[in-house]
């Protein structure tokens, strides 16, 4: 395989943008990424979009086609990939493979989303019967997504003695990280007392410990070594890149299922753990080589659990790490130094692309207001509906 580099990155700030269509968010992010890479549309040989069933994409999730038909009809391959919240990393993985295989020298990746208000509606044509877990979990027990995360968090309280204060501190840390990040939507500082005073949604998770939804867009351009010679930029290299699905026997409470087979020795959240482990292996690295972890914090619980699942720290050690500032930007592991999903609000398909933009800014030393000093290795990790996991290792 040929080496692959991140040539340029760009994003549209997260928020609520009722006057900008999804394609406008996408185009702004792409233009920023092209400018960053020092290239233009003529050099782009392919477009991979993280696509969803939400607004945009002609109703069919054809987000890449929509972008080129809006901006530059130049005959390039348009690939639209699904994967729910993991779609962004699957798009990245696809573009990486297009270059690593030698087929192309520069491919753009984009994720742009305008999220529906309130609960995400069921798609048209859904089977309203027992074959559909998403139907079952609503009608038979009213299980919301936060309820799934809360079941995990409550179990953690039981197993490791995690306290409400520590869980609140995870949310406080994310806000503190976001304070200087112009792309984050929520930047006001929080205190543990404020988090604990926010409404209880699903015990033990309070409102401020659950990721809201936002609109946003992120893009990047990947390129080969040959292309690298034409751009004036410090190279950030894709050292490892993997996507995967779940393992039988995984004990995680997987949304939207209502039951799972639990077998000893199977990794929790195996779709993500498997992807992380393969991405690190490809990079020739171990979990402790990671300087920055950009991970999907759909809830505060994830911030404690995932570094343990990846083997960066021992099981149960995250509480201690967090409380002692070892997950802060100047700690042993910089955990979501840009503020994470909790400070952005999730724009599903754009989120995993943004993670990789953030890692690139960090590795180049360009993460103004949130820079991790001297970072050399960044790891991303994300989970999507349908047991989709993905992970990328970037290095400089």
């Amino acid at each position, binding site marked *: 395989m040929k080496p692959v580099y991140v040539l340029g990155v760009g994003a549209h700030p997260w928020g609520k943008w009722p006057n900008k269509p999804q394609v406008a968010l996408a185009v702004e992010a792409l233009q920023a990424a092209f400018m960053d890479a020092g290239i233009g549309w003529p050099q782009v040989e392919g477009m991979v979009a993280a696509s969803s069933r939400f607004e945009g994409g002609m109703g069919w999730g054809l987000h890449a086609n929509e972008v080129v038909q809006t901006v530059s009809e130049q005959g390039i391959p348009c690939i639209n990939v699904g994967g729910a919240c993991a779609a962004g990393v699957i798009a990245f993985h696809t573009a990486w493979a297009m270059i690593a295989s030698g087929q192309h020298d520069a491919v753009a990746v984009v994720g742009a989303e305008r999220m529906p208000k309130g609960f995400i509606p069921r798609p048209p044509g859904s089977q309203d019967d027992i074959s559909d877990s998403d139907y079952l979990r609503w009608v038979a027990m009213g299980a919301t997504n936060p309820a799934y995360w809360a079941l995990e968090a409550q179990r953690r309280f039981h197993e490791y003695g995690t306290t409400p204060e520590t869980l609140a501190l995870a949310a406080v840390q994310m806000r503190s990280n976001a304070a200087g990040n112009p792309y984050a939507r929520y930047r006001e500082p929080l205190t543990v007392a404020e988090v604990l005073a926010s409404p209880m949604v699903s015990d033990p998770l309070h409102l401020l410990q659950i990721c809201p939804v936002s609109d946003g867009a992120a893009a990047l351009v990947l390129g080969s070594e040959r292309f690298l010679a034409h751009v004036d930029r410090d190279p950030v290299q894709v050292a490892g890149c993997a996507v995967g699905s779940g393992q039988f026997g995984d004990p995680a409470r997987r949304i939207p299922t209502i039951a799972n*087979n639990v077998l000893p020795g199977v990794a929790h959240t195996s779709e993500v753990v498997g992807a992380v482990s393969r991405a690190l292996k490809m990079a020739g690295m171990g979990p402790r080589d990671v300087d920055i972890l950009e991970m999907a914090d759909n809830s505060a619980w994830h911030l404690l659990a995932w570094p343990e699942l990846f083997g960066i720290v021992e099981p149960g050690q995250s509480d201690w790490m967090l409380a002692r500032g070892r997950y802060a930007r100047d700690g042993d592991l910089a955990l979501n130094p840009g503020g994470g999903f909790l400070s952005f609000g999730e724009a599903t398909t754009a989120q995993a692309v943004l993670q990789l933009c953030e890692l690139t800014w960090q590795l180049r030393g360009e993460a103004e207001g949130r820079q991790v000093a001297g970072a050399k290795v960044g790891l991303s990790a994300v989970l999507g509906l349908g047991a989709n996991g993905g992970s990328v290792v970037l290095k400089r």
Partner: protein
Amino acid sequence: MMHEAKSFVVDGLMAEGSEGVRLCASSCGGCGSVYFPRTVSCRNPDCSSTSLEEKLLEGRGILYSYTIQRYQPPNLFRIDNWEPYALGLVDLPEGIRVMGMLSGFDLDNIRIGETVKLISECLFTDPDRGKVMTYKFAPEITGRDAQ
């Protein structure tokens, strides 16, 4: 006594016999894995069996975790007289962990590790369907009997 119309919230989810409510599951003839709800194939990657049998689960198990839903879920979840309720995660002896509503617990005093039993309770009453029932888990000792 008048017979009262009754139905289950989703067809094929649960069954009620003389011994009470049961969960409708599948059991693999090859590896013995049990699936709830019923499925069309064993998903154990080490098993190539294509024979699945129907199996009813008694639903007695150990509470693995729980949460309390403080806000009313969206409309797809239909319930009469909504108030905050507990959801539990229960380890069944068949090797599966099943999520369901809890009943008969003091919301401030739910203990992980407690033994629970399966019951059925009315979620809402509908003019066409009568009492629409779902399954729940209740404390084995002090729980209310199935309605």
